[in-house]
């Protein structure tokens, strides 16, 4: 008995160590990028690999905010995230509420229409041609309209609405409240957990997506943050060689790139505590319905 418990103690120790390592592996790249973005070029030349800079410079941040159009891109992304998420929520909640009413005639085929789109889709090219045909190219709406409702989120919200006790809604109606009032005053306040969850789903989607910006937007003034960041990063193939050797600048080109990465990551980190809590809940909510 004592030998097994000794062995189990050892196994526990190995387990803790491995998990600690896994956590650090997830954290380290962010830490290193933060460090690079503040490290003066001269210190890199002097010390080689710098994990914690002795001196810090804000040169890279100044450069990236002024010379690379990041400020403008921030506005585009902020707009699509706020307005986009707002519209996502309105469209999703309204449709989900109607579909949650089991007595609604035609509910089953309507649900099929939604679910089928999760299994089969027209693909990239027809969707692009449609967006083009609708005249949305080179407008910020091309970043919002194509993803207006996620079928997955719709099903989650519908499932949540179905679990609410119907009696409350019915008694409110007996008291003379209209449908809109019931939805607004009774159903929505009870549904804040699920609304916060899918709101965050949508918001993170808007903040992180870059490919729609590449596909639908040609006008540089309308580039979202991730597209501008991508362009800055893809410069490495042509520019790094010069930037590394040019030690006269206060910070290397890599530092500028990493400052851009940090500026795009920080907003996510700020809302991360909320994200973590609600996302985990959302994933589990989704799985309940299978």
């Amino acid at each position: 008995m004592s030998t097994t418990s000794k062995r189990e103690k050892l196994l526990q120790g190995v387990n803790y160590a491995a998990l600690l390592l896994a956590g650090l592996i997830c954290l380290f790249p962010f830490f290193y990028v933060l460090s690079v973005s503040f490290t003066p070029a001269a210190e890199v030349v002097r010390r080689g690999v710098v994990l914690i800079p002795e001196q810090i410079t804000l040169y890279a941040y100044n450069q990236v905010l002024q010379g690379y159009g990041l400020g403008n891109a921030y506005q585009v992304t902020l707009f699509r995230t706020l307005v986009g998420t707002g519209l996502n929520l309105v469209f999703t909640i309204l449709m989900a509420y109607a579909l949650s009413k089991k007595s609604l005639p035609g509910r089953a085929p309507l649900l099929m229409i939604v679910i089928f789109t999760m299994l089969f889709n027209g693909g990239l090219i027809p969707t692009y041609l449609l967006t083009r045909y609708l005249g949305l190219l080179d407008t910020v709406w091309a970043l919002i309209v194509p993803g207006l409702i996620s079928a997955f989120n719709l099903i989650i919200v519908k499932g949540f609405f179905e679990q609410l006790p119907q009696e409350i809604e019915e008694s409110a109606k007996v008291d003379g409240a209209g449908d809109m009032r019931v939805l607004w005053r009774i159903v929505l306040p009870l549904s804040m957990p699920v609304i916060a969850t899918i709101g965050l789903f949508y918001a993170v989607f808007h903040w992180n997506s870059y490919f729609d910006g590449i596909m639908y937007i040609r006008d540089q003034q309308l580039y979202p943050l991730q597209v501008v960041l991508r362009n800055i990063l893809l410069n490495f193939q042509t520019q790094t060689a010069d930037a590394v050797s040019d030690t006269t600048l206060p910070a290397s080109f890599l530092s500028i790139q990493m400052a851009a990465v940090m500026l795009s990551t920080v907003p996510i980190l700020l809302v991360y505590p909320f994200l973590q809590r609600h996302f985990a809940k959302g994933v589990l909510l989704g799985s309940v319905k299978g």
Partner: protein
Amino acid sequence: MRNLKKHRFMYMILLPGLLYFVVYKYVPMLGLIIAFKDYKLMLGFWDSPWAGWHNFTQFMQGVYFWDIMANTLLISLYKLLFGFTAPIVLALMLNEVRTEWFKRSVQTLTYLPHFVSWVIVYGLMVALLSPGDGLVNQLLQASGFQTIAFLTEPEWIRPLIVTSDVWKETGWGAILYLAALSGIDPSLYEAARIDGASKGRQIWHVTLPGIRNVMIILLILKLSNILDAGFDQIFMMANVFNLEKADIIDTWVYREGLERMNVSLATAVGIFKSVIAFVLVVGANKVAKRFDGQIW
């Protein structure tokens, strides 16, 4: 008619969403007709001449066909192999941790990468792996080794795709397993211990059967997405230097359709992929139902 009046409000609030699904999901499906035409932007949808199955045969006979199929399937299979097992292992490891704060901290750290975009992940890779001043290459150089152009070398792109995918999604993928694990009846472990089962046997006979359903469902989802090798990620990581080993169906469709404007050919390939995916997901679902309860 009375029904319509009684449910008028519900139909009214349903309409905007329904309109979205019809316009943005079903109209593009009709657009698949393009695949059977020789679509010219100048002629438009109706006036472009019919092409029959030409676009499909052209694709399957193309020299690129086997290359992009192989890339897609290989990358997907590697991702399946590691991306499916890693979250299970992580969840099992976390499940053995009795110190709550430690468990929560590890979870917080391992979820984090899930929330950043592939562009940002690529930024992290540039910091660590770029040929001149990336951390790894600086260390290689300092130890007297040759530097490696990780981000442009074809031989490195697939390992990088799979590794970065596992890095980004493992912590997140463990959530569902942890939830399933917390639902296992503790008395089962108690009984196993009384019968003298070792830790390993407890995991095999109690823990794994407890998460079996979640494993099956996730495996099915991953299998039916086998032709989705990860567009956002690969479009970000692929470049002219490593494209031969990284070009998947989706990236090929993008270039063929929107850069070279071979709209019909690209759409045909898109359908080819959608149809296979559809068959896979429906079939996998049937298989799962049949095996439910019989795997262990």
